[in-house]
């Protein structure tokens, strides 16, 4: 499918030409996580208990903040109208857009998470479950966030509205993601929860592009 390759190429080129869009959510992630030890005190035992929660909540906010660069520029310069009038399968174009956006926003967060987790004294046996959860969970966050972004892209100041729309929908991912870590710490198997997250990801891949398309049609008309 040339259209998928072409879309990924276009999105990655745009992302690397305006690196602020990639770096800012990542900086937010680092800074917000660092604020917690400053706020709650450097008690290692306490920090290690809340570490996975901190990482997950900040990752979730960082992904949401990165959403703005997904459709905003395309909406403003009219590329979105052209996209909707394309005779190529729109489902795959949207999926390619989401995939490349995750590569430059979600994946760096996953890569950075172990460093920040060890700073928060997360026990080493919980590291792999945290990473596995984030690896499956952040794409879901990207897809749900993209539905909210597609709905609000036509509004001039959509930041807070996006948070109100999207954050409640992030709850299941957060619950299962942090659940994975606490199960691992309790010495229980995590494959069940990861499978649930995986099922959510598959469902998001199937349905989110359709919802995004419908939302974009409303936004441009």
């Amino acid at each position, binding site marked *: 499918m040339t259209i998928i390759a072409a879309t990924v190429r276009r999105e990655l080129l745009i992302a690397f030409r305006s690196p602020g869009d990639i770096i800012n959510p990542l900086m937010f992630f680092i800074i917000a996580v660092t604020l917690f030890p400053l706020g709650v005190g450097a008690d290692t035992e306490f920090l290690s208990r809340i570490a996975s929660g901190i990482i997950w909540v900040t990752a979730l906010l960082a992904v949401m903040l990165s959403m703005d660069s997904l459709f905003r520029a395309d909406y403003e*310069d009219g590329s979105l109208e052209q996209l*909707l009038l394309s005779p190529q399968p729109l489902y795959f174009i949207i999926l390619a857009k989401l995939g490349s956006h995750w590569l430059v926003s979600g994946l760096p967060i996953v890569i950075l998470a172990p460093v920040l987790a060890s700073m928060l004294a997360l026990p080493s046996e919980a590291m792999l479950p945290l990473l596995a959860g984030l690896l499956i969970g952040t794409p879901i966050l990207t897809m749900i966030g993209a539905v909210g972004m597609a709905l609000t892209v036509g509004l001039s100041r959509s930041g807070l509205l996006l948070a109100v729309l999207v954050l409640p929908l992030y709850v299941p991912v957060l619950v299962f993601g942090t659940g994975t870590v606490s199960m691992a710490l309790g010495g229980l198997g995590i494959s069940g929860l990861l499978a649930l997250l995986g099922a959510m990801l598959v469902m998001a891949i199937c349905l989110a592009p359709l919802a995004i398309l419908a939302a974009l049609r409303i936004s441009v008309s």
Partner: protein
Amino acid sequence: MLSVKDLLCERDERVLFQNLSFSVVAGEIWQVEGSNGSGKTSLLRILCGLNDEFDGRIEWYGQDIRKARQDFNQSLFYLGHTPAINKTLTPKENLSWFCASRGLQKQAEIKGALNSFNLYGYDDMPCYQLSAGQQRRVSLARMKLSDAPLWIVDEPFTALDKQGVNELEIFFAEHAAHGGAVILTTHHRLEIGHAVKRINLDKLAGLAG
């Protein structure tokens, strides 16, 4: 090709136009006229299927455009007010994605298309470094690559210089002569050397009943 029956468009309880019927056949150029705010852009967006808020029927070879979506999109080239080019990408990259998104295998012809719109030497420069007129030309260069028979263009002459306007008029005439059709809005007097049919939206306005 495209036939419009009893089209009515209402915005905030004001009827922009009503009882609008016309049909566009191959080889025709249609100019939509009207004062500011008379609904020219709304009409074009409705014809493309970007806006669903209308009453009436729009048919593409006898099929409702909403049902024959893919077929219609394949045959349609639309250019709106906005240039639809990404400013961080170069003209070449913008056109290359355009070709991919239309399913055209024309990567080799991009340079030629840019040259024919006087953009020789600018193909590897990010679009934000180009002037408004040059950005417009990048956007128009897509028409050269497109194989769609129906062109719907909104104010194509904006920001172009005199020579650019002349060239574009000739280009539209050629497209019509080769069996295509053009629907455009402009305030400018077309001197195309090809018959131009007109729709005046000011005469079709009315009050919501």
